[in-house]
């Protein structure tokens, strides 16, 4: 078909192709202006459409950015509120626990101080005053002795009396000093007690001081969130990403834990629900085992929700305390029952495995050996695992909550990146289309360069003739003017 069309003008393919080329070039030359318009308008249309698309994507991007910011700030606000609430709870606990006893402590400190003061007063060093008559005696004793034996004897007696009085006074002073020392010694435990009491008060006050600093910090962050600060938004966003990766990691670990749990109970479950019935492509016993694990996880969710550790279900969180406590007891009881069922199933699994092993051995013709000495260790291990794993799985609610909260931010960021890339691609495509249309116009002209060249030659000669004609007319005009 192509050959027939090609050789329509001549049997010689080259000649025929040349004629076709000539026709093509001629037709293209004739259609130059509309073709140029078509190419340029197509390029412009694509460019405009892409620009429009990119603009709408930019709008979408900015609205998504706003939404992401709102989500991040809302999450941050919520977290801040919770943190501040927690800090206030702690302050309340400290005040209730320690400062409620402060009046008693204060009284104790006051009593101790009073006692110390009394003891101090009692321990005041008052030197004993010599008796009043000592001065008179001293004056008499200082009278010069005249040699009279009687007078001398009297004076000696007075001197002796004076010495005795001094000795008595010193003795009494020593006694009172000893008493004061005893009092001061008795004051030592009071000081220590006072010191301990004051240290306790200081500890409490320091704790409160730390809490108040933490509250200040949280309040500053809260205010920044309320003001929609860019820095805090960026910090919260990066914190969300960190939370996302950490919670994902913990969830993966939980999934592996769930798989181990499933392996523990799937086989013995066939003893309860039969091993031959299927629901879809899965065994009913496997589904039953999965259901038990799912129920355990659900109970764990409700338990942590009731304990107000997680906040996935506002209905549970907003229940009154008595109802919440009832729910804690119920969910924990169900969890404990399921854990016990799992432990028994794990034990049954061990028994079944033993029975199967014994059967395989007998089928293989091997002599059944006596039961191993420490065979109870893996049995006990399986039972403990069966009991512990449900409780461990119950805590999956914490990373799950973090994952769900951070997932919103992550999805927003990914969507933002996608929209940004799409907008860039749209702009690139629009620009490329415009440049391509210009290039096509040039290529078109390149294809018809021969007729274009001829046209230029002809128009050039006509223009030059016109110019000569115009200049001749001008000369004639000037001549006429001069004449």
């Amino acid at each position: 078909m192509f050959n027939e069309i090609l050789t329509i003008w001549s049997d010689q393919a080259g000649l025929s192709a040349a004629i076709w080329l000539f026709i093509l070039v001629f037709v293209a030359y004739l259609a130059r202006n509309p073709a140029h318009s078509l190419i340029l308008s197509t390029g412009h249309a694509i460019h405009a459409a892409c620009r429009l698309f990119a603009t709408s994507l930019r709008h979408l991007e900015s609205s998504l950015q706003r939404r992401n910011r709102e989500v991040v700030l809302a999450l941050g606000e919520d977290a801040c509120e919770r943190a501040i609430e927690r800090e206030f709870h702690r302050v309340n606990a400290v005040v209730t626990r320690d400062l409620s006893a402060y009046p008693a402590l204060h009284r104790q400190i006051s009593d101790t101080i009073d006692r110390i003061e009394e003891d101090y007063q009692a321990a005041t060093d008052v030197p004993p005053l010599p008796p009043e008559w000592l001065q008179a005696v001293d004056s008499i004793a200082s009278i010069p002795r005249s040699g009279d034996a009687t007078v001398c004897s009297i004076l000696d007696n007075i001197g002796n009396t004076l010495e005795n009085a001094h000795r008595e006074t010193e003795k009494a002073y020593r006694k009172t000093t000893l008493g004061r020392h005893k009092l001061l010694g008795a004051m030592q435990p009071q000081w220590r007690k006072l010191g301990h009491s004051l240290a306790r008060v200081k500890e409490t006050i320091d704790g409160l001081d730390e809490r108040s600093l933490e509250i200040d910090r949280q309040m500053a962050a809260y205010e920044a969130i309320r003001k929609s600060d860019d820095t805090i938004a960026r910090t919260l966003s990066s914190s969300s990403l960190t939370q996302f990766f950490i919670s994902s990691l913990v969830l993966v670990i939980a999934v592996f834990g769930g798989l181990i749990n499933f392996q523990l109970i799937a086989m013995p479950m066939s003893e309860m629900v039969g091993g031959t019935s299927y629901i879809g492509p899965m065994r009913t016993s496997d589904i039953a085992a999965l259901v038990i694990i799912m129920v355990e996880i659900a109970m764990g969710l409700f338990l942590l929700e009731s304990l107000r550790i997680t906040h996935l279900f506002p209905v549970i969180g907003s229940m009154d305390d008595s109802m919440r406590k009832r729910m804690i007891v119920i969910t924990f009881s169900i969890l404990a029952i399921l854990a016990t069922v799992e432990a028994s199933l794990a034990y049954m699994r061990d028994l079944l495995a033993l029975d199967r092993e014994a059967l395989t051995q007998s089928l293989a013709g091997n002599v059944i050996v006596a039961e191993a000495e420490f065979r109870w260790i893996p049995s006990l291990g399986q039972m403990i695992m069966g009991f512990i794993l449900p409780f461990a799985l119950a805590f999956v609610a914490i990373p799950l909550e973090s994952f769900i909260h951070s997932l919103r931010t992550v999805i927003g960021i990914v969507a933002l990146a996608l929209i940004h890339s799409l907008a860039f691609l749209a702009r690139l495509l629009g620009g490329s289309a415009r440049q391509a249309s210009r290039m096509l116009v040039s290529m078109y002209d390149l294809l018809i360069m021969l007729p274009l060249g001829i046209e230029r030659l002809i128009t050039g000669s006509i223009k030059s003739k016109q110019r000569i004609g115009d200049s001749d007319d001008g000369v004639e005009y000037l001549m006429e003017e001069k004449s």
Partner: protein
Amino acid sequence: MKKIILIAALSLTLAACNEPQSKARAVYLLLDTSGTYTREMDKAQSIINYLLATLDSGDSIAIARIDSGSFSEKDIIARMTFDDRPSTSNQQKRQFKAQIDSFVDSLRGGSRHTDITGGMLQASEYLRETGAGEKYVLIFSDLEEDLQKGHIRDFPISLPDIHVVALNVTKLRSDNIDPRDYMERLDLWKKRVDEAGGSWGVINDLERMDHLIAQR
């Protein structure tokens, strides 16, 4: 959105309502008790032990002998469908093994004729009745059919979706002289099984029985 949810719910309901194909397996082992094959019973016992170890709860097994007229219920030595519960199923396997051991101990002398076709017909009936999803007929024989005078077996048989596997096909003395006899025997049975709608296989090395029955 509501429509999508409705369509998804309907699809799930319809999928759940479909008749589920049984995942149970049924095995019918034909033991050739003619002539020299009675000396091969220890191998047959190891095959049965392998089957008992491989089959699970809900699966069925039947062991029958090939004698002069095998299209008979009397030729079934033991048959059992294992219980849903693994512990009971293990007990059943022990009982089954005991039955087979007692049969092997009591086996004296072989039958004069070999009616393999009759045994396969009987196997086909049994397997159909089990309603199992996977059906196997295992033939422990040299595949040399020797019919009693008057017995008619040269008609097309029906073995729909049944895997027929010949085990331990011993070479006869005449096969050593002309191996084409052996090849022809195998080809003849393959053709008959294929025409009957089943699939054919041969395992001579019993060490390779691992892939005989699809593991779950």
